[in-house]
């Protein structure tokens, strides 16, 4: 059965100086979109950080396609096919739009540094292919961004920055995409656009698994196939959005009774 699941965690936990940010968490995701909800400080982002290798779990195992990831560094995990976005927009402000997107292809490109120096045609071919891919990925969301490809990120509006970040995460065709509050800081209209964008990724036929953290329940209800609710580092509910939203524990944790 394991082989069918894209990602599976077994009793994963992490301590920060006595504080158990995540505790004995069992989680699995197949070919689906899972919403991860929970109040602030419940360990959602920490959980993503464990999966993407930024934190090492102090207990348990993370298994991706039957392979244990515990000892892997973030870059190795990205190479396995897990990519992510961040809560606050973390694009490289000193790079242009296209360079940011190309960054997402880094682990896919094969040019070594001596080829970059000595075999110009090969390197250029690969970069040009990469640019085509990046433009393809970003025009799904907003074709206008392509026209601004050679501008610095700092001149791009917030919603497009989010799109660029997501495009950067999917341009390398990952198997598992981790989205950390993609709608934070967006207004209602922009949130609607973002929901559409994420739906496009989900339905693109790439069979990509998505874990999405969100505070906005309207997003979760529209996008996710399944919802997992965390509180104080532990899973307190799991199921479809309707099931979870009616769960007593969830209401207690979330709405303060």
């Amino acid at each position: 059965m394991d082989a069918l699941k894209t990602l599976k965690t077994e009793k994963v936990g992490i301590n920060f100086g006595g504080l158990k940010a995540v505790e004995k968490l069992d989680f699995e995701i197949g070919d689906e979109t899972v919403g991860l909800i929970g109040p602030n400080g419940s360990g959602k982002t920490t959980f993503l950080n464990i999966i993407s290798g930024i934190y090492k779990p102090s207990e348990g195992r993370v298994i991706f396609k039957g392979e244990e990831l515990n000892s892997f560094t973030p870059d190795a995990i990205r190479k396995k096919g897990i990519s992510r976005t961040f809560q606050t927009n973390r694009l490289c402000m000193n790079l242009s739009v296209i360079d940011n997107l190309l960054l997402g292809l880094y682990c896919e490109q094969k040019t070594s540094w001596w080829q970059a120096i000595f075999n110009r045609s090969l390197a250029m071919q690969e970069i040009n292919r990469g640019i085509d891919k990046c433009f393809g990925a970003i025009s799904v969301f907003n074709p206008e961004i392509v026209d601004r490809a050679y501008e610095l990120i700092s001149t791009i509006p917030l919603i497009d920055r989010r799109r660029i970040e997501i495009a950067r995460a999917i341009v390398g065709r990952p198997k598992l995409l981790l989205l950390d509050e993609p709608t934070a800081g967006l207004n209602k209209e922009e949130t609607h656009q973002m929901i559409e964008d994420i739906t496009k990724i989900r339905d693109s036929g790439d069979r990509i698994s998505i874990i999405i953290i969100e505070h906005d329940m309207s997003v979760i209800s529209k996008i996710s196939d399944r919802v997992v609710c965390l509180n104080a580092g532990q899973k307190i509910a799991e199921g479809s959005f309707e099931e979870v939203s009616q769960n007593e524990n969830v209401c207690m944790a979330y709405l303060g009774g």
Partner: protein
Amino acid sequence: MLEIKNVSTKYGHLPILMDVSISVARGETVCILGANGAGKTTLLKTIVGMVKPTAGEILFDNELISNLSPHQVVKSGIAICPEREGLFPKMSIESNLFLGAYYETDKNKIQQRFEEVSSIFPWIRRRLRQKAGTLSGGERKMLTLARALMSGPKLILMDEPSLGLAPATVIEVFNVIKKIVNDAQISILLIEQNAQKALDVAQRGYVLQKGSVILEGASKGLCNEDFVQRCYL
């Protein structure tokens, strides 16, 4: 009490606020709503004097404060609760609190205010020696509020007290704000994204979008406005 008249500000060439006029009367609670990037925090910084307006003026108690530097503005009776990271993490709760009363020289007054504040936040009294850096998100918000109260302000500027808090904690924070609102001596200018909560405690509200005030009115009225409904609720 506080009057912002036709204020504009720029960061470099980028205009942030355009011709903004806002007023707060004595003892009144006013909220400013707006999405990210609408210029809410810039407005607050402009009031405090951290950003100089390029046009317009700001009056406080009928005195011009838009050309004062931050410490002079604070001295004149305005207290600020910053958005996040508003505490001194390596200092104890006690030091943080007493730094709030920076311009008060009368020790008795400070003590008296401390009594008042600790009656609003009873937990503070028990944990005076704890380092501020070890508090949870909600507690930090409370402590910044308490610190603002320590200066005995005429006006408190609150920057997004609900930001980054879990729903349960948000309720808690707003309960405290309500307590302060009931004290008729203090005016509050509340900057919020959470429109429902904010309009709940405020008497009047403004809606800020892309640097201009597009709507203003009494809370009840604003609540029913179609635009606010669509964008913020």
